[in-house]
């Protein structure tokens, strides 16, 4: 009951956030000079064609009317139709999002699976050479622009060593994508690099903090070995703050996906977003922003919920 109420309240907040997002995005889009018609119809288009286009897309109506109209269709689950791609935005996102999710979820998983043990290990070996080396490496991984890192990986592993193909799996369905795990390696590694850097730092800090907690001393006084203490106690206690950060990392993951998709010829949502921006395809742009926002909001919400599950204190409101 309590949990339900909490979820309701959080969901309501999330709705408010998403509403703010739609208003801001809508206003920003329509603040763009020129309107999309000429860009989409090309230099050869005539004035008549432009007028027809604007009328057909409702762009000749006033902004609030358009917004209300947009919200109404949104409530019906309809995100509109792309100006350029001859498809509904929902279909487009339906095709592209799973591919991006494969990439981001895999990157996040790989990133976390590496970052968590690395961070803990660093904390245990604090200020030893190993700690310095990993810290330096994670700074470098974080500081390398994704596109630069991707290029280096492509140069080394596809053009010189020929270990991996230069393109991500080209299949349309997820089954096809997963059928080619070798091709997924480079894109996932590229996406995971900064994730490893960031989260190993988080984990290191959290572990250090927990190692100085009293309960560690209690466990030691009870005869528990260092390893057991780390895995039974410190690990779980350090994980909660890291989980809390994951939700806020969603937009970053999507941002990274854009570059990875470009580099590895993997047409996912990031790319859809980018090309929609390039071609002033408002409905697609709005749809993508909406999806990313919802993903972020849901991500933070999930992170909260997971935290409640992992950490019983949160539920009782005593942290």
């Amino acid at each position, binding site marked *: 009951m309590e949990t339900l109420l909490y979820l309701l309240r959080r969901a309501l907040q999330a709705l408010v956030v998403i509403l703010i997002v739609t208003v801001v995005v809508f206003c920003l889009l329509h603040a763009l000079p020129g309107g999309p018609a000429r860009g989409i119809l090309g230099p050869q288009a005539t004035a008549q064609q432009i007028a027809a286009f604007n009328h057909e897309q409702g762009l000749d109506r006033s902004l609030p009317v358009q917004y209300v109209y947009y919200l109404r269709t949104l409530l019906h689950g309809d995100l509109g139709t792309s100006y350029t791609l001859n498809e509904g935005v929902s*279909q487009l996102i339906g095709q592209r999002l799973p591919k991006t999710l494969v990439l981001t979820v895999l990157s996040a998983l790989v990133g976390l699976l590496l970052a968590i043990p690395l961070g803990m290990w660093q904390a245990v070996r604090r200020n030893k050479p190993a700690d310095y080396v990993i810290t330096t490496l994670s700074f470098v991984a974080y500081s390398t622009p994704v596109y630069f890192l991707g290029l280096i990986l492509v140069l080394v592993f596809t053009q010189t060593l020929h270990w991996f193909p230069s393109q991500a799996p080209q299949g349309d369905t997820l089954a096809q994508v997963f059928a080619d795990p070798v091709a997924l390696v480079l894109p996932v590694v590229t996406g995971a690099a900064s994730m490893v850097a960031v989260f190993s730092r988080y984990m290191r800090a959290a572990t250090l903090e927990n190692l100085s907690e009293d309960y560690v001393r209690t466990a030691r006084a009870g005869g528990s070995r260092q390893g057991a203490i780390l895995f039974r106690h410190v690990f779980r206690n350090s994980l909660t703050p890291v989980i809390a950060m994951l939700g806020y990392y969603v937009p970053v993951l999507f941002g990274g996906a854009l570059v990875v998709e470009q580099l590895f*010829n993997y047409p996912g949502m990031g790319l859809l977003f980018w*090309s929609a921006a390039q071609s002033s395809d408002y409905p697609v742009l709005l749809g993508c922003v909406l999806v990313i926002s919802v993903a972020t909001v849901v991500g933070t919400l999930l992170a909260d919920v997971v935290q409640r599950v992992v950490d019983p204190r949160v539920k009782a409101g005593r942290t």
Partner: protein
Amino acid sequence: ALLLAGCSGSTGSSSASKDSINYALPANFTPNWILPIGTAAHLNTNNSSISHTLWEPLVAYDGSTGKIGWNKAGSIATAADFAADNKSVKITLGDRHWSDGKPITSQDVKFWFDLIKANKKQWAGYSPGQAPDNWTSLKADDDRHVTLTFDKAYNPQWMLANELQYIIPLPKHAWDQGGDPVKTWTYLNNAAKNIGGYASNPLWKTISGPYGVKSFSTAGKVVLAANKKYDGGEKPGIPTVNLLPFTTTDAEKNALRSGSVDYGYIEATDLDQKESFTARGYEVKPWSGWAITYMPYNFNNPSMGPVFKQLYARQAIQRSIDQTTIAKVVFSGTAVPGYGPIPTGQASAFVSQTQKDNPYPFSTSAARALLTSHGWSEQSGVMTCTRPGSGASQCGDGVAKGTKFQMQVLSQSGSAVTDNMMSAIQSSLAKTGIKFSIKTAPVNSVLSQTPQCTASQSICKWQLSFFGTAGSWYFPAFPTGDALFQSKGGSNFGNYSDAKVDQLISASTTSSSNQAIQDYSASLAKDLPVIWLPEPDYQISVMKKGLGGFAQDSLANFHPAQWKWTS
């Protein structure tokens, strides 16, 4: 080695067997339309290339034979006989059949004609006053002959090249919805909005061209399979054609390097790696386009419009641009200097000697002299009008005292070559004393931000616009300037207006001699309605050795049926 084999299998390996070919579509383009009729948003070059391989045009007037002309092998018509008064044409259809075995008849031509007449506003090719407005009627003389009548006499070459080329016989027996062209149009367009149905919908199975759709993924990969029932002159050379989409040119180049593309492209900046591609079994073949490249002036811009209106000022700008060096260095030789409104990448009978000779050769000192002799003097690096007035040695009408010669271009983003060219132009203009600032935006955004406007509109702040990374303007076969440079022309973004030019343009479409268009070429080469810039190749193609037997169509269409594995 095992691993390697696994990898290349995954990326769609190059066609080792000669039964198929992998063709790289332009970066960031996904095919999404096959219906030969539709709106401008749908019928871009690449979509219509695909659609033309499914439904053969009546008159294929293009550059696929090596020079621009009528490719009869790829056309359904075998002859087009103009009446002596040039007011009508009688077209003869070949003995051809739809893939379902039914003959292609004059009714199928009329079907297209009626559809376009009734729905011209939505049609991609429509421009008021031109086809189908200037076609008064189409009459089916018999099953194999139609007569098309015009509202007045036209230059037959122009009519063939720029208007008749639109006509595509469509399978009336399969597509017609009870004889109502409006309903039929809507029905067909709605059906075409379902990309998923392109490979399965029976509508799209009745074709006249060399290929049919085998699969058409929403992510952009298209597989074409040879049409076994094709009875035209352009027999498909390769049974399966894979059209591959790429997110970026970099991704495409990586695919080329790994050999998974048979027919792709690189950028001008990559030409110094030509050897590495030839070493991998490729040939590098520039694909020149039938296009001109330029930067329109906004003559209605409140601050710089009056300056742009001065011919001497335009001359000074033009003389500050070193097209030869830019073409050689920035474009690595993949562009030719352009001095007027007629493409010069290909030899043609349309270009005037004046344009070829470049009336305004590069010289920043000459440019400076032009300005200083017209009342400008340099103040802290920027030319400033010190002698306003309309006299011969004054700045000219509407140019206020103290006006600084500084202008901004809104330039297409995403191309290193374009960026470098703009930097070079900026640098040489600065030497003349003209401040040139650059703002970049995606090409669509450039186009929507640099529309025709009047001085009082807020959108009229743009001064110069550039959207020509791959050429600003692709002409149909006959390079008239009606949309570009005619007063009120639909794509005359900067509102250039000159009565004499207007006259020359309409003469070029109606007179049957080439003199009119040459005059037009000379006149605009001298009057500088825009800043002329080097004309880049459409693309620098990279093809597997052994692929050949065809010419790259300078109208920027591709014709898969002509591709052959020769070895």
